[in-house]
């Protein structure tokens, strides 16, 4: 073994060690703790009324927030890349806001808009619409925090494919909608899909913003991450660990989907 090979193995060991200690070990411990006394206690805790409700609410949030951000993300990417405009840098910067700002702050700002004495509160109250401490508020918070993902993944792909294919479609008689649907979207589909996967993972696990706007009412406005926290605080460890494992498994499925997409893209 020459010195460069030694160095390579050294680096590999360092990288793997880092991942093992910081990422893998806690997860293994979590799984171990959860199933220490068999499958029954965590399973019962999750399938209790509140646990099941939390799971449903979380999935509902994903089903609403992710499509909204996908459609918005694709439109926004097209605006940024295809329609050169002086104000584009502003849109670009604004989209990064949720990355930069703490989710708790986002939750609080939603409070100021929709909460008591908030800007929109009078109108909404009149119409009988409740945003805070209910599902709409949770969805809103999740949409906010997961805005950047689809845009960030789609913009580079759009830039890379260039405009020639779209122009070719135009010369062949396709209108703007046909061009988008038949040429642009298929060309950027892996980028969009990648963004959707990341967006889903984020919405699944969102805690900070949701905990501020939801009120964390068991069986009503409690998502899975909030369920984990509440059970942990109440020393209901089987419940907390069970739900945590469930969340981790959901995230793993999402990540696996992402890896499959990556492989498909490379092919």
């Amino acid at each position, binding site marked *: 073994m020459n010195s460069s090979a030694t160095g390579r193995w050294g680096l590999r060991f360092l990288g793997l060690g880092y991942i093992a200690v910081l990422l893998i070990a806690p997860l293994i411990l979590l799984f171990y703790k959860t199933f220490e006394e068999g499958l029954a206690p965590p399973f019962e805790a999750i399938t209790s009324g509140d646990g099941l409700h939390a799971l449903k609410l979380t999935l509902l949030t994903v089903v609403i927030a992710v499509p909204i951000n996908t459609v918005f993300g694709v439109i926004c990417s097209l605006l940024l890349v295809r329609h050169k405009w002086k104000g584009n840098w502003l849109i670009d910067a604004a989209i990064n806001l949720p990355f930069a700002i703490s989710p708790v702050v986002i939750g609080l700002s939603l409070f100021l808009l929709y909460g008591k004495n908030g800007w929109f509160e009078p109108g909404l109250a009149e119409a009988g619409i409740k945003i805070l401490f209910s599902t709409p508020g949770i969805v809103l918070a999740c949409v906010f925090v997961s805005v950047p993902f689809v845009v960030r993944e789609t913009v580079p792909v759009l830039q890379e494919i260039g405009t020639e294919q779209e122009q070719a479609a135009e*010369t062949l008689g396709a209108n703007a909608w046909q061009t988008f649907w038949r040429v642009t979207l298929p060309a950027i589909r892996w980028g969009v899909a990648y963004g959707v996967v990341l967006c889903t993972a984020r919405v699944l696990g969102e805690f900070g913003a949701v905990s501020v706007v939801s009120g964390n009412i068991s069986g009503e406005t409690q998502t899975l991450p909030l369920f984990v926290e509440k059970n942990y605080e109440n020393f209901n460890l089987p419940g907390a660990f069970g739900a945590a494992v469930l969340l981790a498994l959901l995230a793993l499925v999402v990540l696996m989907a992402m890896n499959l997409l990556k492989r498909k893209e490379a092919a």
Partner: protein
Amino acid sequence: MGISVEGAGKSFGDFQALDDVSIEVPDGSLTALLGPSGSGKSTLLRAIAGLETLDTGRVTIDGADVSKTPTQKREVGFVFQHYAAFKHMTVYENVGFGLKIRKWKKDAIRTRVDELLNLVQLPGLADRYPSQLSGGQRQRMALARALAVQPQVLLLDEPFGALDAKVRKDLRTWLRNLHEEMNVTTIFVTHDQEEAMDVAGQLVVMNQGRVEQSGSADDLYDKPANEFVMSFVGEVNRLGDSYVRPHDIEIVRDRDEKTEEAMVQRIVALGFEIRVELVLGDGTEVWAQLTRSEAQRLELQEGQIAYLRPVHAKSFNGSPPSNPRGASTPHGSTDGDDAEVSAAA
């Protein structure tokens, strides 16, 4: 369908891409827009397709003003330098794209696509993806795609620019034959004067956003309107105020009143052609193109003194040409009767 562009102007920021350009392309012709990069030739082509909006001027196709018509309604076939293949579609889907947009029946699309794939010599490749084709095959697929919708005019933007030399030559011949067969009015953009002369019946030479001259290859070569055309279309030597082609320099052994003394610097044998590099008394370097037998007859040696007699020298600034036998051409001397393309730049 004839194409005419009148007074076209277009700028990108400070850059004037087109400056009052007018061209006439007769119905059924094959015309080349020839010029160096940045001369505006691609912009002009894109403006005809509607992919670029003109600041001033208008575009007419078959007598109808299409300046305000969007690209998808102009019925132009456009071929891009880098093919612009739809990568996620098979060859079949690529070629049939325009027909699908026009809501043709499946059977009709199949018949037409098969017909076109035969025409562009790609039969049997219908189910391949563009990434599985060579550059030349991709460009032929792109051409089939453009022809599928039976466009009024065919526009090719440096169609062979990304291909290697051999494929390029084959495709040139093939394009010329195809044009004879289809007879659709075709404009193609190139920076390669040999390619333009080889393929096109009419040439429009552009430079810095303007048309310098248009006409047949012979017109441009024998009667260039200015220095730019003379030096862009073919090789050229500069002798004082006049220009002379390397094959129009005679080398003689004995001096007379029409010759200039020069020293032979280098003799390069390029097969049939012999390239003789000389330096004049005032230090001007010129080169002459001789045939092998001419060179042998002269028994030229590097370092010897020889006498040059330029024939057909041209001068473009009003001063008389250095050689009385030379056919001097005043500005804009395009022969209106012969040239099917006339420019009013």
